[in-house]
């Protein structure tokens, strides 16, 4: 059974047309299933967990990065995770902005997403962890004043720019190749002096007294905070144009 989780923001009238088109396309492909609209649901975790208990074969996030993160947050490190890992796949249909995770999976638009769901190409991927938040793509913070502690050493960055802790790349043009199967995170530091630093690690502690760490572009987390990785934690449905091997 397919279970489609519609994010709350899709209740806005500007998304009606896109949603209608999506539902027609899913029916045409024989992919229709149960629809759960998060607008109005108070216990999101309980609702998603219940669907997995009831035997959902695919949970499909319809929305953006935040929708995916809500679903992952409802599943990982809960009693339902064992069932999810054995029986359930995670799919994604991007609607609107903030869809870097879909880009990473090689999903460009709604039509593309429907075809990819039908093809059912599955990859197990790592999940990044910032405090109690999970991320698929990256966590980022302003570089100036940021200190990163890794194993036996620390990095201090004094120049303005950005620090990105990447699990899964969202842009093909990047100079690094991040692998979401290797159990490692790639730290990419780019400053205004146009220099670039790259370090691959398993875990780190990051702090900046003035800035917050942004997780997958949507959640702000205070520092200092530990960042780690959990290997092959989620099975996801991806397109052939995904940005990883």
């Amino acid at each position, binding site marked *: 059974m397919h279970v489609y989780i519609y994010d709350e923001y899709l209740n806005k009238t500007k998304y009606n047309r896109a949603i209608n088109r999506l539902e027609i396309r899913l029916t045409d492909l024989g992919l229709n299933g149960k629809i759960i609209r998060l607008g109005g649901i108070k216990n999101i975790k309980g609702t998603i967990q219940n669907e997995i208990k009831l035997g959902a074969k695919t949970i499909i996030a319809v929305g953006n990065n935040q929708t995916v993160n809500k679903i992952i947050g409802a599943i990982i490190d809960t009693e339902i995770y064992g069932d999810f890992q054995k029986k359930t796949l995670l799919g994604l249909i991007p609607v609107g902005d903030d869809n870097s995770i879909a880009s990473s999976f090689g999903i460009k638009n709604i039509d593309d997403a429907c075809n990819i769901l039908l093809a059912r190409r599955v990859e197990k991927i790592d999940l990044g962890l910032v405090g109690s938040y999970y991320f698929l793509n990256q966590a980022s913070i302003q*570089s100036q004043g940021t200190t990163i502690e890794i*194993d*036996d*050493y*620390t*990095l*201090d*960055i*004094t*120049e303005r*720019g950005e620090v990105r802790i990447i699990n899964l790349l969202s842009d093909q043009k990047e100079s690094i190749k991040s692998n979401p199967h290797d159990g490692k995170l790639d730290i990419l*530091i780019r*400053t205004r*002096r146009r*220099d*670039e*630093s*790259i*370090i*691959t690690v398993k875990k780190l502690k990051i702090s900046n007294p003035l800035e917050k760490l942004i997780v997958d572009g949507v959640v702000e987390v205070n520092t200092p905070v530990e960042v780690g990785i959990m290997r092959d934690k989620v099975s996801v449905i991806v397109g052939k144009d995904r940005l990883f091997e």
Partner: protein
Amino acid sequence: MFNKENKLEKFKDAETIIGASIKVKGNFQGQGNIIIEGMLEGSLKTEANLFIGDSARVVASIESKDASINGEVKGNIKSRGYLALGSTAKIFGDIQYGEISIEKGAVVNGQLLMLSGEPRHRDNKKVEDKSSEETE
């Protein structure tokens, strides 16, 4: 081996790059190639190759396979393979190497010791090397 032409080729897949605006403190270890353009204090060790850029400042003991050094290093260097000291290199410490080349303008202030086979050159005195030719 290193030279100006193959430096980028050799390091395009560097596992670690420390940019010019980064300061590293502590014991830095890696398995892959490392490029240092910034500052490092502590120790630096890799199983693979090491490139230290001309703006880099390193106060650390260093251990690597091949190494190309163009910046300032205060500390002992052990390069199991080929060590290339560029014209802008300033070394204040002892050097152990498999093979070595020193470009004109490089400053070496310490002992040179070849790691294996018959030592080709051993100098127990402090050396200020501003030789006009590359040596091996």
